[in-house]
């Protein structure tokens, strides 16, 4: 049954408010059809929920503000996630089904094919007007909060869609000035693709005109300990004929840390924040007493 337009507005706002109460910092809605321009068949909302009309997107903080202050960067890397955006997604999905009677489900965002998730939460955030893609590892920056982590809910319910932000969050004014002076923004300076890093871009008239991101090198940093390191070590182990060498590897701190990270990987899947550390967007939001 079609709902009157005014009810759609009210319902949309109520669902966004629920998402925020459930732990998200920001919430928006993308039309399911908006994805078609950007991703191939097989990765669109309707591929996962036939009849999907709306994608509710919620973003939450990663590391706490205090974690950013810690001189021990591993602390932030181990406790970087509290998954409030996923909790918010589950609450919203449950609410839509139980209270409104429409099909709803958290969008499948876990990698199922190597590094690839079935659906992009970053694109969802862009299309819901929650942020824009940045030079720094293509991270979606929210204009107020900077780095946020995103989850989404697919639903057959019609909601009022938001639209992509009109103004790019990146590059920030200070970054444009630094680029004009030094030829690099802070994130490009800390992690330059042409010198062992992951990031490159060009800026003209204050706008990104080209960008490059080496995802696999970034993965060695952002997933420093965990699945990928473990796979490398198992390969090494399987190639070692010498029992003492195998034992040394098995008993090494790195082997233990990789396995420990796998056990606690949910909290630790992001293990590099260096491009975000130097990013001015959202930095002042993180300053507390």
């Amino acid at each position, binding site marked *: 049954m079609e709902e009157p337009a005014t009810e759609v507005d009210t319902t949309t706002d109520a669902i966004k408010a629920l998402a925020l109460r459930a732990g998200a910092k920001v919430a928006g809605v993308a039309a399911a059809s908006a994805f078609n*321009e*950007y*991703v*191939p*068949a*097989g*990765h669109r909302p309707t*591929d996962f929920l036939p009849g999907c009309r709306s994608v509710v997107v919620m973003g939450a903080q990663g590391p706490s503000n205090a974690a950013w202050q810690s*001189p021990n*960067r591993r602390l932030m890397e181990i406790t970087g996630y509290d998954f409030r955006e996923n909790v918010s997604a589950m609450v919203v999905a449950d609410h839509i089904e139980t209270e409104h009677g429409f099909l709803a489900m958290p969008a499948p965002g876990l990698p*199922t*094919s*190597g*590094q*690839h998730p*079935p659906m992009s939460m970053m*694109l969802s955030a*862009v299309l819901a007007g929650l942020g*824009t*893609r940045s030079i720094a590892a*293509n991270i979606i920056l929210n204009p107020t909060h900077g780095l946020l982590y995103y989850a989404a809910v697919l639903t057959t319910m019609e909601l009022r869609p938001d639209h*992509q932000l009109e103004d*790019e969050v990146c590059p920030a004014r200070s970054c444009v000035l*630094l680029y004009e002076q*030094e030829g*690099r923004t*802070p994130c490009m*300076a*800390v*992690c*330059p693709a042409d*010198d*062992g*890093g992951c990031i490159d871009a060009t800026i003209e008239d204050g*706008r*990104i*005109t*080209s*960008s*490059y*991101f*080496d*995802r*696999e*090198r970034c*993965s*060695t*940093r952002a997933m*420093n300990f965990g699945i*990928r*390191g473990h*796979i*490398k*070590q198992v390969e*090494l182990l399987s190639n070692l004929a010498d029992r003492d060498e195998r034992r040394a590897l098995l008993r090494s701190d790195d082997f233990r840390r990789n396995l420990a990270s796998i056990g606690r990987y949910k909290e630790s899947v992001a293990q*590099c924040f*260096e491009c975000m*550390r*130097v990013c001015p967007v959202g930095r002042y939001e993180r300053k507390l007493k």
Partner: protein
Amino acid sequence: MTGVDGQEAPAEPERGEVTGFHVVDPELYARHRDAVLALGNSHQRNINEFLPADRRGRAWSDAEIAQHLGLDVRDVTEIRVVAEHDQYGIEEYEASARFKDAAAASYRTRGVKGLYEGAPPPTRRAPD
């Protein structure tokens, strides 16, 4: 519907993974690894949504790559996933740890200014 390179898009929507356990032939992997990597999402060029459509790129799906290269999509998936892991050796993980130590220390002592001082860059240090 057309695919990325103007060809007809694959008939079936791509699944994240078509089969459970498929091992790609190492020689097939070696032969097509670079081509698959170039078309995939490992090296992301100009994917910013603000870029005009004629400049904006996107990664190809495994099905699209398979159709383009004339390969079984399961082989493409395995070539891509193996190549993702194979791009950098285990030494890069150690280098990454040193990078992060240096970058965090640089910012703590000199802030953003520290990024623009000296050579070699202060955010990367050679192993001891």
